[in-house]
Every structure is written in C-alpha cells, then in structure tokens.
C-alpha cells in the first residue's frame, strides 16, 4: 500500500517537474502560424477584409474565424497559398474576384486638398496643395481608402483596364 502511494507520488512529481521544465524551455512566443500568415499577406493594411490591418486578418484566418479568401487585393493567388499552408480545401472558382481595381482622379472635381495623399497606404497618389492630384497606376492597390476620404468625390474606383499583355484565355466549358 505504502509502496504504491510512494511510487505513484514520485511518478506524479517527476512528470510534473518534466512538464514544468518543458513549458519553460520550449515556450512559444505568439502563434508561429500567424507570423507565417502575416508574412504572406499583402501588408498594406488597407482594411478591405474588415479586420484591423493584415495582422488582424492573419490572426482571424489562423483561428479559422475568417476564410482564406477574405483578402481582395491578394486575389486567387493569395487564397490558394493560404489554403495550401493551412491544409484546407477551398473552392477557388467560387471566389468572387471582381478583378483588380484602380483609383482614378476626376480632374475636373479635384480641389487639391491633399487628404487622400495622407491616407494612401502605398503612397500611390502624387500632388500638392491646390494642385490636381494623380494616381500612380503601378503603386495603387485598389484598397479604396482614398475614395472615402475625398471631400468632393473626385476619386472613383475603376477596374484595371484589360490589356493584350495581361489577357488570359477563359476556361473551356466542361464536357
């Protein structure tokens, strides 16, 4: 009886110490998966997903509360990469890809207030006070933050025009 009590107590104490040691020695700072997902996200913190920045979205995707398809600027490529990393299957064809968007300045309405320049996450708008602003096509991510900020509705989102260089064949109808 005594031998059993002693041996079980020793076993429990030994395992408890081992667990305590392991929890200190192998402690994980934050969620490594989340860090990896943050590195994959676009990183412009545009907020189109509805989360506070790309880190927030990555946390939600890692927890499983948001689908990997929630990032519009990332598009299909990002959704596929995220799903691949998380090991989940997603239906990419169902992903509503409204295509890449681009902010365009209506020059007759722009008053040159510089407010849009301050909110653009990629510094894609050039201009100065009381000068008509312009959007650099290559730098614009189509996040739309400038559209909300503009006091005269001079900024509008347009789909990026299709060009011969970027055109791709459509998928043939299945047999």
């Amino acid at each position, binding site marked *: 009886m005594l031998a059993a009590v002693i041996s079980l107590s020793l076993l429990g104490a030994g395992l408890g110490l081992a667990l305590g040691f392991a929890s200190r020695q192998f402690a994980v700072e934050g969620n490594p998966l989340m860090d990896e997902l943050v590195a994959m996200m*676009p*990183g*412009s*913190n545009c907020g189109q997903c509805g989360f506070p920045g790309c880190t927030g979205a990555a946390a939600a995707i890692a927890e499983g509360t948001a689908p990997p398809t929630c990032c519009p*600027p*990332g*598009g*299909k*490529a*990002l959704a*596929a990469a995220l799903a691949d990393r998380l090991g989940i299957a997603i239906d*990419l*064809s169902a992903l509503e890809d409204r295509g*890449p968007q681009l902010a365009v300045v209506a020059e007759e309405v722009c008053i040159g207030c510089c407010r849009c320049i301050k909110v*653009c*996450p*990629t*510094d*894609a708008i050039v201009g100065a006070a009381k000068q008509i602003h312009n959007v650099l096509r*290559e*730098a614009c*991510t189509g996040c739309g933050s400038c559209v909300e900020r503009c006091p005269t509705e001079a900024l509008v989102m347009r789909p990026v025009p*299709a*060009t*011969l260089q*970027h*055109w*791709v*064949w*459509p*998928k*043939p*109808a*299945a*047999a």
Partner: protein
Amino acid sequence: MGFLERVFARPWGVHPEDRKRPAADVPAVPVAVPEKVYIPLAQHVGAPARPVVLVGQKVLKGQCLAEAAGNISAPVHASTSGVVAAIGEIPAPHPSGLPVQAVTIAADGEDRWCEGEVPADPFALAPQEAARRVAAAGVVGMGGATFPSAVKLALGLRAKIDTLIVNGSECEPYLSCDDRLMRDRAAEIVSGIRLILHATGAREARVGIEDNKPEAIAAMGEAAARHGEIRVLPVPARYPMGSDRQLIVELTGREVPSDARAADVGVLVHNVGTAFAVHEALRLGRPLVERLVTLNGGAAARPGNYRVPVGMLAADLFAAAGGFAGTPARLVMGGPMMGTVLPHLQVPVVKGTSGFLALTAAEAAAREPAPCIRCGSCIRACPMGLLPLEMSARIRAEDLSGADGLGLRDCIACGCCAYVCPSRSPLVQYFHYAKGEMSARQRSTLRQESTRKLAAARVERVEREAREKAEAAARRKAERDAAKARAAAATAGEAA
C-alpha cells in the same frame, strides 16, 4: 538522326490532310495598297514600340513610325507613303478582340520609298553592326512567334552557336506562304541565310523542308548548291515538324532540355521568311513592311498567296482577292491547328500573319465535347511526351500546380491532343487557360511583394518625417532658449 533512332523513335505528332494545293501552286500576287493602312505598335513579343511621328505628318514608305522601347522590342515602319491620319486604338488581330495602339496612314497612292542606308558589302560589317541594322529594320520572327530577330542574332554571338537551323517546314495545313517564298525567292533566302551565318558566327546552316513541298526543296537546293555551308534537308511531313524543338531533333539529333533554350545546345532556329527579311534589310536597306500572306479555305474565292503591305485590313485583303465563295462559317488567322478564330475581319495584317482562312461549315465542323474515355490517343500524339488527359483532368479541377508538375510548362500548344481526341475534348484549350492563369497568379504575387515594399517605405517615410519635425522643434527651442539666456545676460550686465 541515325537509322536506329529512326526505327525506335517514339511516334509523335499527327498527319492532318494538308490542303495546301491549289493555293500553293498559284504564283504570289502583289496586292494594290489600300486607301488606309493601320500599323499596330505591338507586332512583336516584348514592349510595344514608341511612336515618333505626329498626326498630319507626311511619311514615306519604309520610314520609321515608332522606335523600339527597351531591349526586347522592335520598331515599326510605314508600309506605304502618305499622311499619318491618326494614332490611336484599333481592334487587335488577337483572339481577345481587345484594342491595340496603331498608327493609321492615309495612303497618297505614290507608294514612294524613303532613302535607305545600303552597305556596299554587308559581309564587311561587324556582326554587332549587322545585328543593329536588322534591329533597326524591325525584323521579327516570321514563323508566327514574332520574337525580335536581332535579339536572337546577338544571343547567337554570345552563346557559341555552331548550327543554324532554317525552318522551312511549314507544317500547318492550308498555309503555303513559306513554300511560295522558297519557290520564288530562293536566291534571296540563301543570301539571307549567309548573312545570318555571318552575324551569328555559326559554321553551317541546315534548311529543313517537309517532303510534301518538292518544288521548294528543288528551288532551295539549286540556290544553295554553290554554298557548301548550307545544306537543304527534306524532313518527313508530320505536324508539328515546324516546332523548333522537333525540327532540331530531326536535323541535328540534339534534344533541347526542358528548362533550356535552343542556343544552349548550340543551335539557333530562324524561319525562311526571317532570312528573306534579313536579306532585304542588309542588302537593300529595306525594313520589314510587307509579307506573303496565304488566303485559303473553302469559302475563299481565289485561294493563293498575296504580297501584302503590313497594316492592310483583312477585309480589304479579301475584297482585293475576289471576296468569298459563299458565306464563311469561321474566319481563322494563321493555320487551323494553332491559329486563332477571328470574330470579324477589321483587323490588320501584322508581321507575324501567315494567312487568313475562310472555312466553310463542313471544314469547321463544330464539335460538342464528350467525357474522356481514357483511350490515350493524346499521349501518343503529344510531340513533347506529356500526358494531356491527366493534365486536363487536373486543370478542370483547378489543380494548376498538379498540372504544372506533369509538365504543363513544356506544352507547346500545338493542338495535336485536341485534334486526335475521339471525345473531342478541348484539351489544348485547357492548357491555354492554365498557362494564362498561372502567369496571372505569378504577376499578382509579384505585385503583392511590391505592395509590401511600398507600404514599408511609407511607414518609414512617416516615421522619418515625424522624427525630423521633432528634431527641428528641438533645435528651434534650443535657439530660443539660447537667445533668452543671452538677453538675460545682457540685462544682467546693464543692471550691473
């Protein structure tokens, strides 16, 4: 290829009915210059050319309209004399029907050439100088790939090319523009081949011509007889013999590795049309402004080959060639295997246009696809040794990386698989889609990376500005304090 390789070679390719005659037997006819020509700025692989003329300016035939923009690009030239009527968008000769930037010239009917720079002896030119002149003449690959030829010549100099392959196989059914060019202009082609040999430093040239063109083989053999370094070799008629990798194996026995180019095995491939254009550029100082175009198909009234100025609308060309015999069921640019269906004929002839086909309903039999029966016909037909049925099954399920693992990148889109498929499955169409989709995804990944960099640069900028502001404020404060201290010291001095 040796006898044993020939006997034990894996059969590949298909043997479609060639339907080249009677169009191939009619001598080429020059076409009168139309009232207007529309010359696209992007007629080549690479960056579109940059226009150097203004609307309203008078131009002569052969004058440069737009110059090359970047390393992989080519200039375009006026194909007739006249006035620049517009610089703007026109429908592109492309399956998408998207617009392309073009220079429109209202012809004055004189068709007057501008003075070209003609070297006394092109063989005295340094190879680099010859390549520069070929580039200035806007010569691009005439076999349909339209890769700037001068870039390939320069590559030949760097990569130690020993053999030049001249592609006269013209394996696409219906087309006969290369055949006709070889029959009528064999001496000029041979002159062009010798110039390309000079410009690349290759020792010998092998001209591969399919054995269904005996007249072209005879004409080229006669023209090349005096030049020991040029050999004319008949190759068996089999589609796609005109694909560079297949022709290289057939003529040299060398196989180009999957991730390499022809230059890596010491070979360079040029089309016979390109050799002719190089001759025109270096011997006559004439840029590439016209080409032979085949009109064929059951619904073409006068099938044959026509010498057409670049920029002439296909509709004008058909009108000049007698119009249609009946209503065409399908209009195709290029050959029936790899060509593209055109929605209308308001598109210009470009440097890479080999022909237009007006097919009757019987020729263009529309085919309803049925499920794959896994017969494996496509595997036997594939010239690249791929598994079209497996690749298409993956693409259908959006598993593009799976298809890529099966060698999608090596697919040359020849269409043999779709041609032989008894279920009429759109196999090559799946591969077109998958390749486009893969490059679109690659582009979006690149874009994402650049977005990340831009966002980081902005954060850095905002921080820097805040820091500079704080520093400036601190400096001003220190100055104010110093001034105050001085003033205090001065009042203290006065008081004392």
